[in-house]
């Protein structure tokens, strides 16, 4: 039983927050936006998954992708292990903790007992850092929670071995080798290029800017998909939750990406990135307007076709602006 000294900090997003906390703990000073940018985390997808009642929007890349991209671009080596046997998974976690190694684990957020029940949902790609264990349970740093928390062994086991989409399969991650020198410029440029390519060049109709367009076109159909007005209200308000509240740093990660571009501009000593950073921040402000309009429509049960048309037009404007932004970024990094 041991508790490693670990600095708990809140962050905007669980995966980038957990990874940046681990890297900083290991001695590599990196901000959450820089990690998110280098990892090419910004994204958009409009998805209709059979396991969901309603279409969902995703504003970030696939869970786990940040770590892989970071590893490639920064030269940090991570150990990432999945398990079939929950007992073995828990034993290995405890062994690492005994050695004083904080470890990021992928969990189902539903079993994070310290979070108020009404905020917990089944979401299998929630990352927390486990940094100790004592008689009370595992000491957990969850960047969505203001303080470090304690989670009982049974809940952590359930959370690590939940089934369903993105099932964690006991995944644990920790950095083992840090690079002797990091080529930050190359990493930043490569991260921007990757993200911009995903946004404007992916030839799939539901991904990137095409995905935003699809979202704009399909939002008219939402009233037909809903059970009743409460359901439609809930789904509309979820637009706000997905873009603003569920670990995005605001505006579906656009504010965090603007922060990254500002940091990149200083690092690369290039004013063009600073200008794009400002435009990305303004773009985020307009996404936030969309979230607020959707939330108000939901709360007021204001489902007039005119409202959906307005919302659709606002989303289409974002598609156009993001096409311009990411195309410019792609050209800048060539």
């Amino acid at each position, binding site marked *: 039983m041991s508790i490693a000294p670990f600095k708990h900090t*809140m*962050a*905007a997003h669980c995966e980038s927050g957990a990874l940046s906390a681990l890297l900083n703990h290991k001695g590599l000073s990196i901000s*959450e*936006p820089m990690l998110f940018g280098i990892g090419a985390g910004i994204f958009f997808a409009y998805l209709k998954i*059979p*396991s*969901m*009642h309603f279409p969902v929007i995703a504003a970030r890349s696939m869970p786990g992708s940040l770590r892989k991209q970071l590893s490639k671009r920064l030269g940090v080596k991570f150990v990432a292990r999945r398990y079939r046997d929950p007992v073995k998974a828990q034993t290995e976690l405890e062994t690492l903790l005994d050695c004083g190694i904080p470890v990021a684990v992928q969990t189902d957020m*539903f*079993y994070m007992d310290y979070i*108020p029940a*009404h*905020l*917990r*949902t*089944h979401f299998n790609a929630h990352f927390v850092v486990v940094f100790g264990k004592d008689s009370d349970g595992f000491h957990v740093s969850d*960047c*969505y929670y*203001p303080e470090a928390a304690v989670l009982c062994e*049974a809940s952590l086991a*359930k959370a690590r071995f*939940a*089934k*369903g*989409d993105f099932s964690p399969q006991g995944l644990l991650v920790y950095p083992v080798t840090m690079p002797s020198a990091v080529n930050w410029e190359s990493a930043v440029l490569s991260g921007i290029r990757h993200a911009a390519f995903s946004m404007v060049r992916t030839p799939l109709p539901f991904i990137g800017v095409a995905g935003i367009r699809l979202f704009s076109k399909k939002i008219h159909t939402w009233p037909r998909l809903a059970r009743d007005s*409460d359901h439609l*209200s*809930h789904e509309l*308000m979820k637009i*706000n*939750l997905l873009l*603003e*509240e569920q*670990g995005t*740093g*605001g*505006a579906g990660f656009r*504010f*965090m990406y*603007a*922060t990254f571009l*500002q940091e990149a501009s200083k690092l690369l000593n290039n004013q063009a990135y600073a200008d794009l*950073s400002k435009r990305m*921040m303004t773009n*985020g*402000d307009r996404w*936030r307007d969309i979230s607020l309009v959707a*939330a108000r429509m*939901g*709360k007021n049960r204001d489902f007039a076709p005119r409202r959906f048309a307005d919302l659709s037009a606002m989303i289409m404007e974002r598609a156009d602006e993001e096409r311009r932004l990411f195309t410019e970024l792609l050209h800048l990094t060539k």
Partner: protein
Amino acid sequence: MKETDGIVDYKPHQMVLYVEKADGAYGPLQTGSYMSKHYIDDFWEKRRRIETDALQQLTSGTLSPVGYYMLLLDMTPADVAHRVGISVRKVIKHRIGAGFPLISVKLVKRYADVFGISVASMFCLPAPECTAFRIIQRETDNPFVVFSVIERPDSP
């Protein structure tokens, strides 16, 4: 977003936003949740309606406890099936009142784990009018048995 626009005074639900600070630099701001502060009443109102409707269907026998908790947690048969480890067809069958008696206790336990409740809660609910007390379930070493403890809402 300007820092001043991002500040929301709501301690129970804190989060981090990236904002433009007074000096023009962008950075993190720990703040309260706008949605929780301004829209939580609507959430609870909808939740109460879902609970009342689901309870009515449960007590009349049209909905099974599986269907009841699926409604409360807004889960689809496909998601539940994947998490419990059975087919979607079976979940659809178990969701209605007539399909529930066919389930083994072992499967009830798997459903209960997915819903985050005890096996006992699949068969027994606090009466809706009973607001003077709350019933807390304390786990035992036996995964099928819990102790029920009756508490006053104001007790620690």
